């Protein structure tokens, strides 16, 4: 197989010393925060917490990485043909056929919990959010990655509508669990329905989106139609699919994978080449569709999220 080109292993923006870069990012974030405050009128919706609103405004627009990733897009056939969606099957190559007739309309997402304005969003409501394209690298905990052009909107926009109360510290998500449509639910590998969670500042971060499409079209069922989370700096399993319920909660939610393997999967699940999975290395990743490998980057290369974890031991909080 082809040799790994050094420029592929270390994208230009990482040639800088990591620490320097992270410090630089922090300064940039602070500067852009000031900029955002000066140029934008105050939001009419009360923001959930100071920390959360700071996170929202810290990184304006998609990252500079998007431009570099544009040339590395994973072919649609691979994006839609190699999926982990255990509600259908454990086989990554069989999800597409088994999910073919998955009914995504009508669809409702109930948003509640510690909010002032609980609301049920229909698929039409979801699609009414202004949709934009975000090109992200998705890094699976199984040590492979894809570059996917998502279509979606910031999760923070939806959360601002329901107005989290001051007690809300985490967001808990749930996937549909419909036995009549999802044959994989018969296999008790995980405790269904699938549950994931984010800390409030992670949920409000500009990079965190709810995706409704990819490659300019609605999401194929196997990719989590009709609406899924995408958190690009965390392992893929955090980006929960086919969401039917979002709750704002006070306590850290226990995700399905945390419950299945507490020693192997933590709440944060941030991409980190220096913290191996107990049974396999996370130092490199197979780039689907290329036959190549690349060195895995901390936070999957989204270094701008580093301030969210300042002072935290990432080995402890894996």
């Amino acid at each position, binding site marked *: *197989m*082809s*040799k*790994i080109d050094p420029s592929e292993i270390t994208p230009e923006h990482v040639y800088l010393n990591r620490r320097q870069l992270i410090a630089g990012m922090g300064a940039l974030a602070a500067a852009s925060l000031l900029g955002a405050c000066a140029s934008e009128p105050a939001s009419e919706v009360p923001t959930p917490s100071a920390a959360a609103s700071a996170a929202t405004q810290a990184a304006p627009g998609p990252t500079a990485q998007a431009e570099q990733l544009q040339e590395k897009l994973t072919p649609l*056939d*691979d994006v839609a*043909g*190699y999926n982990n969606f255990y509600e259908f099957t*454990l086989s990554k*190559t069989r999800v597409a056929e088994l999910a073919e007739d998955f009914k995504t309309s009508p669809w409702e997402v109930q948003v509640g919990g510690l909010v002032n304005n609980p609301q049920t969003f229909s698929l039409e409501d979801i699609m009414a959010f202004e949709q934009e394209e975000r090109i992200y690298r998705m890094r699976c*905990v*199984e040590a*492979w990655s894809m570059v996917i052009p998502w279509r979606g909107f910031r999760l923070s926009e939806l959360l601002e509508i329901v107005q989290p109360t001051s007690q809300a510290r985490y967001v808990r998500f749930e996937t549909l669990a419909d036995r009549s449509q999802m044959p994989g639910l018969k296999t008790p*590998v*995980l405790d269904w329905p699938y549950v994931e969670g984010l800390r409030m500042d992670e949920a409000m971060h500009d990079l965190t989106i709810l995706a409704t499409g990819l490659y300019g079209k609605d999401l194929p069922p196997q990719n989590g139609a009709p609406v899924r989370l995408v958190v690009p700096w965390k392992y893929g399993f955090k980006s929960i699919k086919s969401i039917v319920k979002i709750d704002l909660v006070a306590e850290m939610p226990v995700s399905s*994978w945390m419950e*299945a*393997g507490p020693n*192997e999967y933590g709440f944060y699940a941030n991409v980190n080449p220096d913290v*191996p999975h*107990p*049974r*396999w*290395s*996370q*130092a*490199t990743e*197979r780039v*689907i*569709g290329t*036959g*190549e*490998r690349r060195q895995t980057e901390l936070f999957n290369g989204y270094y701008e999220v580093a301030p969210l974890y300042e002072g935290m031991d990432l080995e402890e909080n894996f």
Partner: protein
Amino acid sequence: MSRKLLRRLQIATHVGALTPLAALTWLFWQDRLGPVPVVAVTRLLGRYALALLLLSLVPTVVRTVTGVSKVARLRRPLGLYAFLYATLHVLAFAGLDYGFDLGLIVTTIRESRREIVGLGALLILGLLALTSIPALMRALGKTWRPLHRLVYVAAGLVVLHYLWNYKELRRWPVLAGVALALLLAARLPPVARILGQRRR
């Protein structure tokens, strides 16, 4: 056991062991192994290696039950084919997946229990394959038999390697483990005695 039957079983072993390799080569050549051929090739080679390794433990049990000793001659080709598939499996891992980048491979193995147990199994199988050369068999004399009982250790490591490959508990590695446990149990002297008695 007639000489004819033994020959038929030997031919079946060669055909059965080589056909999947031919099919896999063809499918890889034709790019018909799905979106990530490297994974499919590595995984299938590994599965055949384990299947052949477990099969190589069957003749001994058949000999115990039936008293036909000639059947034990099938162990050698089955074991050697298992080693062949295991070697190809590792070559696919190192070559197709890691481009023979030694630094990367070493980092990966060092951090990965899954790869360490696999490597352990390969080393044992290599040793057993080497000591299957007639001249070495003779040279080893009485130590050959206890040495070759290491095949159970190798099979155990392979099962663990297979089990650890997945995030969750999967059916096939568990079934392989059960099969290995039964094959090993059949060799324990008290069990073997009971199995042997039934032929009288």
